């Protein structure tokens, strides 16, 4: 074997090994985090964590029932804001707008998606907190909803754009108007992709802390209605992890585990939806 060939074989093997190692490292990080959370959080998680309010400083025990409900309320209203705006905007982009408008909106959506979440938080603070002089669930939802818009918009547009042109023509040739074609053929053909993207957007904002710090603020008690400051899991984790109390650290781990479990469930749900129903074959 010539030296040249040996060298080439060596480079080939070396690169193969490197790519493999990097792949393993990326997976390993996820499992490390998961394992750490399960071990630390698992020790602290108990029934009280889901059913009780936080105990006063100094007392051991208690739970984060208010934060779990608070997060659920925040995500619910955030979806009510982010999903319709993002979805309908995506439909407009994919089906009605000209190429020029589409590229401007697309670029703006990408920029919005790249805005640091803390900046979104400040914006929501000045728009939804300052005018009412009140931290609230709604203000927190507003911030999270803003973050959902670009993700929903871009993925709606992408999935609608991927619906084959011949399906549109098939519907139009039967006498369907443009809106009828979109609502009865195009969107149903793409809905699984869109729904999956919405769930993933939800999972993404579920873990956001920064936009909630000065909108929903936090609360050690129940937050009745929508106009009061509310606890949420990410902010709870943030506060508890920074505290000097051992018991609070334990609870922060438990909250992390619950949050991760929630996101995992949403992901599995999204995948289940993707694998059901009739898919449009590619090509």
């Amino acid at each position, binding site marked *: 074997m010539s030296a040249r060939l040996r060298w080439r074989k060596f480079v080939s093997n070396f690169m193969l090994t490197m790519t493999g190692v990097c792949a393993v490292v990326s997976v390993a990080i996820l499992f490390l985090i998961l394992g750490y959370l399960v071990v630390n959080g698992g020790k602290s998680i108990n029934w009280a964590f889901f059913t009780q309010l936080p105990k006063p400083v100094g007392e051991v025990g208690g739970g984060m029932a208010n934060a779990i409900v608070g997060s659920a309320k925040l995500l619910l209203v955030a979806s009510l804001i982010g999903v319709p705006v993002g979805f309908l905007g995506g439909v407009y982009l994919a089906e009605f707008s000209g190429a020029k408008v589409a590229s401007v909106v697309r670029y703006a959506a990408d920029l919005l998606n790249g805005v640091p979440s803390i900046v979104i938080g400040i914006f929501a603070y000045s728009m939804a907190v300052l005018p009412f002089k009140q931290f609230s669930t709604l203000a927190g939802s507003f911030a999270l909803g803003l973050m959902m818009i670009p993700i929903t918009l871009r993925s709606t547009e992408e999935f609608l754009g991927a619906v084959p042109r011949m399906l549109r023509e098939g519907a139009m*040739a039967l006498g369907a108007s443009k809106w009828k074609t979109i609502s009865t053929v195009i969107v149903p053909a793409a809905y699984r992709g869109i729904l999956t993207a919405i769930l993933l957007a939800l999972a993404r904002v579920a873990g956001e802390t920064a936009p909630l710090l000065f909108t929903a603020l936090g609360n050690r008690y129940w937050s009745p209605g929508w106009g009061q400051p509310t606890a949420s899991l990410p902010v709870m984790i943030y506060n508890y992890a920074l505290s000097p109390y051992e018991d609070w650290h334990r609870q922060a781990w438990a909250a992390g585990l619950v949050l991760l479990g929630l996101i995992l469930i949403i992901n599995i749900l999204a995948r289940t939806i993707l694998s059901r129903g009739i898919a449009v074959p590619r090509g």
Partner: protein
Amino acid sequence: MQASPNPELSVKVNAPAGAATTRENAASIPMRMRISKLNFYYGTKQILFDISMGIADKRVTALIGPSGCGKSTLLRILNRMHETVSTSRLEGEVLLDQQNILAQDVTALRRRVGMVFQRPNPFPKSIFENIAYGPRINGFKGPIADVVEKSLRNAALWDEVKDHLHKSAYELSGGQQQRLCIARALAVEPEVLLLDEPCSALDPISTAKIEELLVELKNLTTLAIVTHNMQQAARVSDFTAFVLTGQVIEFNPTPQLFTTPTDPRTEAYITGRFG
């Protein structure tokens, strides 16, 4: 009066089995659609030049010609599918039952003039829902299952699918999917059915089935078919238009066009000297 088309592929060009056995005089057949002095452009590029021809009532009219000659464009104009391209421009007149189609509501027109495409394009729905789609969006309120059965029977697909109407349309073979698309188009009872190379993505056996079906469908509706396959035009059509570089070179009853073409270019094309 029609012989059934020969499903074998050995049909000679000069002995069209599916075409009219008696020579039909173009003047004696009423025209369902009429195209006169049609010029068509994409942007500044002219695609069709001064086209005048008709689509005979309850007959099959074939448009043949080499790739890129404009035959598909001409067909798509008949139900205004060309309007999906925003830069398109049209001059001239297209009449359906003596009425200008360009002056009508486009959705109403497309309900009357249906279309089947090059590749089967069933919706991602069940077989049943695919057929029911057209009647439903057009406000049909009657017993929809009857319409579905009738349409599938008319498309010679009923016996193959009657036991699994609620399966996905994508579980059918390519040929079955194309017949499903024909059934879907028939479900709204179109007065004219346009077929844009409906067999180009199919195997010979599926092609033979569809050709057989087209001859049957003449009893129900008026058909216009684009094909690059001359034998297919000879087998199934009663009238043929030969299109070349955006012009209709010759439009005559099929037997006449294939046996005694009047234009030397038609003769050159059907004898395989180009295209």
